[in-house]
C-alpha cells in the first residue's frame, strides 16, 4: 500500500492547433490528488489530443497554447528531458488497443522488465523479475510465471490490456491516463477491467484520468466527469449528478440519444440535429449554438464562461442558461 498521490494536474485554457484547424479550442481540466476524472466526448471532440498533450506525445507540428500545470510546473515550458523523466514515472498512459501498445517481438516479461530497469533504475535482474511477477499477479493475470515468457499474440485482448496496465503501474505513476481502455473488449471483460482500475486506483493511491465516449462506463469508475464538445470542455459534474441532472444542453441531448434501460422499446430516440462544427471553423459564441434547442442570440456572439453549478468544487457548465445574472432569451 502506497501513500496517496500528492500530485495535482491543472489544465488551463489549453488549445491545440494543426495548421488552420483547432481540434482543441479551450480545455480546462483539474484533477485533484487521488481523484478519478472521466473525460467524455464524441469522436473528434479533442479528448484524446488533450491526453496526448499531457503526455507530451503530440506531433511536433502541433501548436499548443495554454498551461498544463503538474504540481504547479507548466509542462509546456519544461525541457524534453524533464518531460521524458515524468513520462511513465509520474504520469503513465494506457491505450485503446492493447495489442498495438505491446511490442509483438518481445515477451511480456521483457517489456515489463524494461520499464523497471529504465524507469525505476532497478539494477538486479532477480528483483525486477520478482516485482514484475508481482505486478502481473496484481492486475489479475493467472499463472504469472507462465505468462512472463509469453508473446503478446498469445494473449487475449483482456489479458493484453492487463499487461499494459501492469507496465503502466511498473513506474509507480501518480496519475494514470487511460484512453478508451475497454472499448476494444467484450462487455464481461470490460467490467473486469473497470473493476481492476477502480481497485488499483485505491490501492496505489493514484489519480486517474479516464477518457471514453461512453458516459455509462465513465460513471462506473469516476468521481467526476467532464464533457468535451468540439474541442471545449462544456460541463463538469460528479458522475451521479451528470447522469441524473445534466445542466448543459449538449449533455442532456447526449443522454437522451442513448436508449435507457427503463424506456419503452422502439420509441424514437432523441436526435441531435446538425453536425459537429469542423475544427477549422471559427466560432464566435458557444460551440454548441448551431445545434442547441434552447439557443438564443447571445449564444452566437459571446462565449459562455464556466458558470458554477454546485457547491462541490470545480463543477461548471458553459451555458448562458445557467448564468445567474444573464437574460435567458
Amino acid at each position, binding site marked *: 500500500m502506497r501513500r496517496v498521490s500528492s500530485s495535482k494536474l491543472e489544465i488551463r485554457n489549453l488549445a491545440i492547433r494543426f495548421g488552420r484547424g483547432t481540434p482543441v479550442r479551450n480545455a480546462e481540466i483539474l484533477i485533484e490528488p487521488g481523484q478519478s476524472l472521466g473525460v467524455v466526448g*464524441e*469522436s473528434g471532440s479533442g479528448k484524446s489530443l488533450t491526453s496526448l498533450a499531457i503526455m507530451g506525445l503530440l506531433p511536433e507540428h502541433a501548436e499548443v497554447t495554454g498551461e498544463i500545470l503538474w504540481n504547479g510546473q507548466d509542462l509546456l515550458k519544461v525541457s524534453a528531458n524533464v518531460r521524458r523523466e515524468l513520462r511513465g514515472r509520474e504520469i503513465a498512459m494506457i491505450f485503446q488497443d492493447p495489442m498495438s501498445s505491446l511490442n509483438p517481438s518481445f515477451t511480456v516479461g521483457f517489456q515489463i522488465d524494461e520499464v523497471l530497469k529504465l524507469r525505476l533504475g532497478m539494477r538486479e535482474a532477480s528483483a525486477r523479475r520478482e516485482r514484475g511477477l508481482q505486478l502481473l499477479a496484481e492486475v489479475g493475470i493467472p499463472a504469472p510465471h507462465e505468462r512472463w515468457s509469453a508473446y503478446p499474440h498469445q494473449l*487475449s*485482448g*483482456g*489479458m493484453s490490456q492487463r499487461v499494459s496496465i501492469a507496465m503502466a503501474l511498473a513506474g509507480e505513476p501518480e496519475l494514470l491516463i487511460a484512453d478508451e481502455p475497454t472499448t476494444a473488449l*467484450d*462487455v*464481461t*471483460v*470490460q*467490467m*473486469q477491467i*473497470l*473493476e481492476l482500475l477502480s481497485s488499483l486506483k485505491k490501492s496505489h493511491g493514484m489519480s486517474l484520468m479516464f477518457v471514453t*465516449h*461512453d458516459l*455509462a*462506463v465513465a*460513471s*462506473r469508475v469516476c468521481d467526476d466527469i467532464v464533457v468535451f464538445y468540439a474541442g471545449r470542455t462544456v460541463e463538469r459534474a460528479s458522475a451521479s449528478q451528470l447522469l441524473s441532472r445534466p445542466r448543459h444542453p449538449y449533455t442532456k*441531448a*447526449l443522454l437522451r*440519444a*442513448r*436508449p*435507457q*434501460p427503463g*424506456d419503452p*422499446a*422502439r420509441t*424514437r*430516440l*432523441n*436526435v*441531435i440535429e446538425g*453536425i459537429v462544427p469542423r475544427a477549422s471553423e471559427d466560432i464566435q459564441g458557444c460551440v454548441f449554438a448551431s445545434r442547441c434547442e434552447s439557443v438564443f442570440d447571445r449564444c452566437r456572439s459571446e462565449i459562455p464562461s464556466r458558470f458554477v453549478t454546485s457547491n462541490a468544487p470545480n463543477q461548471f457548465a458553459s451555458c448562458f442558461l445557467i448564468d445567474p445574472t444573464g437574460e435567458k432569451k
Partner: protein
Amino acid sequence: MVDPSTERTTAQPAATSSKVVLKATDLTKSYRVPGGYVRAVRGISVELKSGRTLAIVGESGCGKSTLARLLVGLELPDSGITTKSSLIPMVFQDSLGSLHPRRRVRQLIVEPILIRDRLIRMTPEIETLAADLARRVGLPIEYLDSFAHELSGGQRQRVNIARALSLDPSVILLDEPVSALDVSIQAQILNLLVDLQNQKSLAIVFISHDLSVVRHLAHDVQVLYLGQVVEEGPVEKVLREPLHPYTAALLASDPALPAGPTASVGEPPSPYEVLPGCAYAKRCSFAESICSQNIPKLEKITNQKTPSLTQADAESRAVACFVVQRSQREGHENAIAPG
C-alpha cells in the same frame, strides 16, 4: 425460433398471424484449422416472423458472425436447413469498407438491381429508384453524386441500408451496424430501422453486443455462447429476468445498468475448445458436477407453476442449463435470482 427437439407452431401470441420469413433448423459449421476443427456454430435454430426483430448477442468468438454468414448464405452449413422467403441482404459494421470507393452513391445504392438485371448502365427508372431509396433512408438527394469517403459514418451506414433495401427484401441482417458510430448518430440509425420496420413490416436480424441497443430495438433475443444458444425468448423477459447464468452475467456487465452481484469471471472461451459438458460451466458460479459431464439442451420452460412466468412467456422462452431446468421442473422461482 424453434426448439430443436419439439417443433413449435405458436410463438408470441401477438404475432401468430404474421408469416415466418426466415427459418433455420439445427445449423452447424466447423472450420478446419491446423490440428483440428473450430466448431463455430454448434446446432442453432432460428425462426423469424415478418415485422419482428431478432437480436443475436454474445461475446467475441461465440459464433454470431458465422451464424450471420450462414443465414444470409455467404457460407454453407455443414448440416441443417435454412428456408427464407427472400434473399437476405447484410449490413456490416465497417460502413466505409463495405462501399466501393470509386462508385458514386447513386450507383452503390442500386448495385444489387444492376447485378440482378444484368445491366451495365443506369436506366432512368433505376435513377428514380435510387432517389426513392435515398429518401427512404433519410439521405439528402444531393449526396447521390458523392463518393463513400465524402460522407460521414452515419450517412454511409444509410447508404448501406438503402442498398440492402434495394431488392425489396422481407428480411435484412445487420451485423453490429451502429457499434462504430457516435452516440448521437447511433440514435438516428436506430430510429431509421424502427421506421423502416413499421412501414413495410420488415423483419430484422440484428447482431450486437450492446444490450442497451438490443433492449431498445429487438422483440426477441438469442444469447449465444461458444456456438450454441444458451437462452432465447422475448427481449423484455430475457433481458429483465434472465434465467441462464450467462445471460445474468452479461447483464451484470452492462455499464448502463446498476452494478449487479453476478458479474462474470474469466474470459470468453476459445472456439477451439472442445468441452464434454456445458461450455459455460468453467465460468459459472452455479455449476454442478453434471454441468461438466453433459451438454444441456435448449428446452422450453414448461413449468406452469412458476409465479413470475405467465403461460405465454413460458412457451416462448427456452434455456440450456441443467440447474435452471431442474429448478423449473421442481417449481422453484428463479434458480439464479440473487439472494
